[in-house]
């Protein structure tokens, strides 16, 4: 990989690594025994490892060929590997916390392994580790292919990818040690947040510069989704994480937002994290990999534009549905509820557009598990957005809020939509990136598909049942007007569902492990002797359309 860099780029890489190591040293020096100090040492080790790698390759031969005649695929390959590694870690943590809810002894009486600390390692591991790396990798791939131009930087893609993973490591290790900002999906503390801003702005600039050097005049719609994802996540991250550390030598900080405004900012962030992290970027994947895999253009390009703007306009206003029946002004709750219901329209437009693209190719969906992954993802996207719009209606929310129903909804979205579209995209991407004819084993893709579907369905049905029972038990009154059930009664009623949920999650995890093996074996298998359809110009063939 270092062989793709010129020697001056290698020197720059070394300088960046040294600079990061110095920052780590400073953190260690001022933080001392505080977690900040521990994290400073981690930053030094991370930067040191990168430096070691760069220096050991410093005198390798320089690239001789013109790099602009090929796409920059190395960072994408590493991103895919990292994404799958995080998937296994994050899903394992998920199965563990799920099992703890059924069998609390699995916390083993230690602080670091208590539910409260493990849970954010699960959410960060799957959302940011698995999802984030997959988004970075696929966005690098899609932007190059649709722009017909190489990434606008040799070092910056590595900076983005490795820097992002450093952020994830700081976050996850911090939770285990016990630091948290107590903001959901934004638990990492201030220094990690500042680092992420630097990485993310680099990402956005890299993306824009690549688009700017495109050879294809029109910017394909998948890029719009990816750009919305990068830009909006930057804005959300900065506003939500405005905080003051209690001192520069301490990991702990307090948010600048007071009271109910803090709650509103947090859920403006939280819901738009769903919208732009867990939806927009993955729709970018959908709009590229699904047509490519099906070898059919998207059903309606116009509809994809309308739903893009619909989603970006509406999602921004929906966050307050997380705060029904709170101190938030009533009209703000109503605003969020209204926009959430309207959101169904662009959401179903996207899901329908994907399914109609497959209309006429159902035999391929039947035969090809990779395409079926993406088809199922579109279906679950439709289901979870319908459910979301429904849950956002205030009286419905009074039943569902605080119950497992929310968790069921989350996982219809996260497993059924986000993870399935990712696996479908990766199974499309891996063979083409490593120049293999196909995945190592089509049968294992099939196995993975059924494990994932079975796991998702078991999980989601368990949580729907559990959540509705829970909600009903909490609002059942006796004839005397007292609550009929104690909290512990409802907990006992959850027990079988918690076991079922852990089992469903386990199936999903096993599927991901099978996927890792399959990807690994594909990478190790012999490449194609002659690349498929190498450099046949297709521009004229398209222009006539």
């Amino acid at each position, binding site marked *: 990989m270092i062989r793709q860099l010129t020697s001056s780029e290698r020197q720059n890489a070394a300088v960046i690594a040294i600079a990061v190591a110095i920052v780590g040293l400073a953190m260690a020096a001022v933080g001392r025994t505080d977690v900040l100090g521990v994290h400073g040492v981690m930053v030094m080790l991370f930067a040191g490892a990168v430096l070691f790698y760069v220096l050991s390759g410093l005198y390798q031969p320089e690239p001789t060929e013109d790099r602009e005649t090929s796409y920059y695929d190395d960072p994408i390959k590493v991103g895919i590997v990292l994404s799958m590694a995080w998937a296994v870690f994050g899903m394992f943590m998920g199965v563990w916390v799920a099992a703890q809810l059924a069998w609390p002894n699995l916390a083993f009486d230690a602080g670091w392994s208590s539910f409260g600390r493990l849970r954010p390692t699960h959410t960060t591991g799957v959302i940011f580790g698995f999802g984030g790396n997959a988004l970075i990798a696929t966005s690098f791939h899609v932007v190059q292919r649709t722009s017909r131009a190489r990434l606008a930087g040799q070092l910056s893609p590595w900076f983005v990818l490795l820097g992002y993973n450093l952020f994830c490591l700081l976050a996850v290790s911090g939770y285990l040690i016990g630091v948290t900002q107590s903001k959901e999906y934004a638990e990492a503390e201030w220094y990690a947040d500042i680092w992420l801003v630097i990485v993310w702005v680099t990402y956005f600039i890299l993306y824009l510069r690549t688009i700017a050097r495109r*050879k*294809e005049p029109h910017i394909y719609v998948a890029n719009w989704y990816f750009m919305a994802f990068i830009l909006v996540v930057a804005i959300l991250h900065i506003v939500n994480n405005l905080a003051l550390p209690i001192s520069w030598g301490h990991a702990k900080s307090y948010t600048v937002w007071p009271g109910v405004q803090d709650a509103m900012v947090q859920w403006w962030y939280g819901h738009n994290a769903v919208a732009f992290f867990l939806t927009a970027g993955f729709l970018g994947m959908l709009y590229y990999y699904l047509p*490519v895999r099906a070898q059919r253009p998207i059903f309606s390009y116009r509809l994809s534009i309308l739903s893009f703007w619909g989603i970006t306009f509406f999602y921004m206003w929906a966050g307050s549905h997380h705060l029904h029946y709170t101190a938030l002004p009533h009209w703000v709750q109503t605003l969020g509820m209204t926009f959430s219901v309207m959101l169904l329209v662009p959401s179903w437009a996207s899901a329908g557009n994907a399914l109609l693209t497959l209309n006429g190719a159902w035999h391929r969906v039947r035969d090809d598990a990779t395409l079926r992954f993406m088809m199922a993802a579109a279906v679950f996207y439709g289901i979870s957005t319908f459910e979301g719009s429904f849950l956002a209606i205030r009286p419905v929310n009074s039943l569902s809020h605080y119950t497992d129903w929310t968790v069921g909804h989350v996982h219809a979205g996260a497993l059924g939509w986000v993870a399935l579209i990712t696996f479908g995209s990766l199974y499309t991407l891996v063979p083409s990136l490593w120049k293999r004819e196909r995945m190592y084993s089509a049968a294992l893709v099939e196995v993975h598909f059924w494990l994932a579907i079975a796991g998702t369905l078991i999980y989601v049905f368990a949580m729907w049942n559990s959540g509705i029972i829970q909600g009903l038990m909490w609002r059942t009154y006796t004839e005397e007007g007292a609550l009929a059930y104690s909290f512990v009664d409802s907990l006992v009623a959850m027990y079988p569902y918690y076991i079922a949920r852990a089992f469903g999650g386990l199936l999903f995890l096993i599927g991901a492990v099978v996927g890792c093996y399959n990807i690994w074996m594909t990478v190790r298998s012999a490449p194609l002797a002659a690349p498929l*359809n190498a450099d046949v110009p297709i521009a004229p063939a*398209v222009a006539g359309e």
Partner: protein
Amino acid sequence: MDLDHNSVVAFSKSWGLFYLIALAVGVVVYTFWPSNRKRFNQAKNSILGEDDKPWK
């Protein structure tokens, strides 16, 4: 102008409404503008090409 709660609400209820509607109209016009049809058709087929190299 005093930036109290009421004036912010008044601003968002008037200008907020107008700029969102204007944006929405703009998007619809762009999407259905007849001369864009060709470009969109080209775009949706462009990703199905099989060459895997940047263009000159």
